[in-house]
């Protein structure tokens, strides 16, 4: 196991008017991250994602619980954890008035590398992340996507075995996001484990091998994206027809055909919820055709992680983001 935590907790105490106030940011988290996987920590703002990430990177001291990171004890072997883990915070942390190269070389040196190796590693990442066109300029001149690439290169400069990324693509344009997703996926090929936090469903879905949904300081459910999605109950096929009458005919036919599915006519369309929508669809269309019930259109929708979030928390993640 690359990361293993048992009952990891963090309570912040703030002193203000009316005495001490305690805020339980993380309320006892058990998680297991396997070697070489991309593990996504998905949840709304304020769920405790960053707090957990900061505890794992030794930036915050846990209030309770135990954790092992790369086999090292979080409470006692912080030096070893720091040396072997790479970490990119939400703010990024590039030194804006320095150039990208200066940032990269210093960061490598802080991990104990000599100047020559540091320069070599910096050059390697400039090449790998295609930063050659801008890397000798001060970082304050970079676009959002360029700066993010530098931030992530800074976190990886010492070739860590585990990379912790806090909301790596928040606020980026679609191209930059797609580019970073590609780069993060490539890390799997070289055996790097990635633990990332995100508030984006699509990011967790496309990128992660395992997802833990966190809400209000607690993990609500863990699983692979497809496990989580099938837990909310299969695919939905919507057939649309010319008239309501045809729709009702189709409803009867489909109910006979798939007794396991949930069939419901709504105006001139029929909604069918079924485990394995994709492979069932051609057969269903054929049998409708055989009875001269002609569908005008068919759509297949698979459950999204948003449906998963809704099922387990009773709220939509999107609603949370609007607030």
């Amino acid at each position: 196991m690359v990361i293993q935590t048992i009952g990891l907790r963090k309570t912040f105490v703030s002193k203000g008017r009316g005495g001490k106030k305690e805020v339980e940011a993380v309320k006892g988290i058990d998680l297991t991250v396997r070697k070489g996987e991309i593990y996504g920590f998905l949840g709304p703002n304020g769920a405790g994602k960053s707090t957990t990430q900061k505890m794992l990177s030794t930036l915050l001291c846990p209030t309770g619980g135990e954790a092992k990171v790369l086999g090292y004890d979080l409470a006692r072997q912080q030096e070893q954890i720091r040396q072997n883990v790479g970490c990119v915070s939400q703010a990024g942390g590039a030194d804006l008035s320095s150039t990208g190269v200066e940032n990269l070389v210093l960061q490598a040196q802080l991990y104990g590398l000599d100047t020559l190796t540091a320069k070599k590693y910096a050059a390697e990442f400039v090449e790998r992340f295609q930063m050659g066109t801008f890397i000798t300029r001060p970082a304050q001149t970079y676009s959002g996507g360029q700066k993010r690439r530098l931030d992530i290169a800074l976190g990886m400069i010492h070739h860590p075995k585990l990379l912790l990324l806090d909301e790596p693509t928040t606020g980026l344009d679609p191209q930059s996001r797609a580019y970073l997703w590609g780069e993060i996926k490539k890390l799997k090929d070289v055996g790097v484990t990635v633990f990332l936090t995100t508030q984006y469903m699509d990011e967790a879905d496309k990128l992660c091998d395992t997802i833990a949904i966190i809400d209000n300081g607690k993990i609500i459910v863990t699983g692979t994206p497809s496990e989580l999605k099938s837990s909310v109950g299969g695919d939905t096929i919507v057939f649309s027809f010319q008239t309501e009458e045809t729709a009702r005919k189709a409803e009867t036919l489909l109910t006979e055909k798939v007794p396991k599915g949930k069939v419901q006519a709504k105006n001139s369309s029929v909604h069918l919820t079924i485990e394995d929508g994709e492979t069932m669809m051609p057969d269903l269309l054929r049998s409708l055709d055989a009875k001269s019930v002609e569908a005008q259109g068919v759509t297949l929708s698979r459950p999204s992680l948003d449906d998963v979030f809704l099922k387990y928390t009773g709220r939509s993640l999107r609603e949370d983001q609007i607030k």
Partner: protein
Amino acid sequence: MTLLRDTKLMFIRNMQHTIRTPVFVFVSMFQPLMYLLLFMPLLNGLQGAPGIPAGQAVQVFIPGLLVLQALFGTAFVGFSLIDDIRSGVIERFLVTPVKRPAILLGRVLRDAVVLLLQCILITLVAIPFGLSVNIYGFLLSLLLYALIGITMASISYGFALIYKVEDALAPTLNTITLPISLLSGIILPLALAPLWLQDLSKVNPFSYAVDATRSLFAGNFQSLGILEGFIIIGVLAALVFFWGVRSLKKMAS
């Protein structure tokens, strides 16, 4: 030794920032130069008063002015640290195995170097005004200014690490520097002060530094005040530096 190496890396990084915008090194010399040009002439009218021997106004004033520069020139360095906290730079350093004291030591040493450059320039400007300097005394004085600078910079960084925002930092630093400078006989010698004020100044560690540097400029190496000044400021610098490091470590808690 890792601490030495890390401190060097951090010093170079901070020095690069200073060199990138060198104008600020000179901007913060504006205040002492104004004192030199627009205030020191007033002292000529006070010649013969207690603490200002006839013809010695510049001799009394310049060492104090350099202490003033050491206090105010470094008191506000905390703002640059807040920038680094906000942009995540400090957190990025803290997730590496870098030695914690090195993060602050690299900064205060840079501040000390900048300060010494300013002190040398101010002294050079003062020579045409009739200042005579004992060169060994001056070199020892520079060491004392560096210690004062390290003290003030550490205080400034310590509060920056506690507050993490600018709003509270400026008033706090002003509240600290003003009584320190008034109670150390920088602008006017404390010999002019009523007894109660002289007594009060004895609890201000920086008043010993001012006495020490005046003796050094004059080449009075036998003066016991010199040793006293070095010990008091040296201990103070060490104390507040470690307090600053503790604030830095507390950030990760």
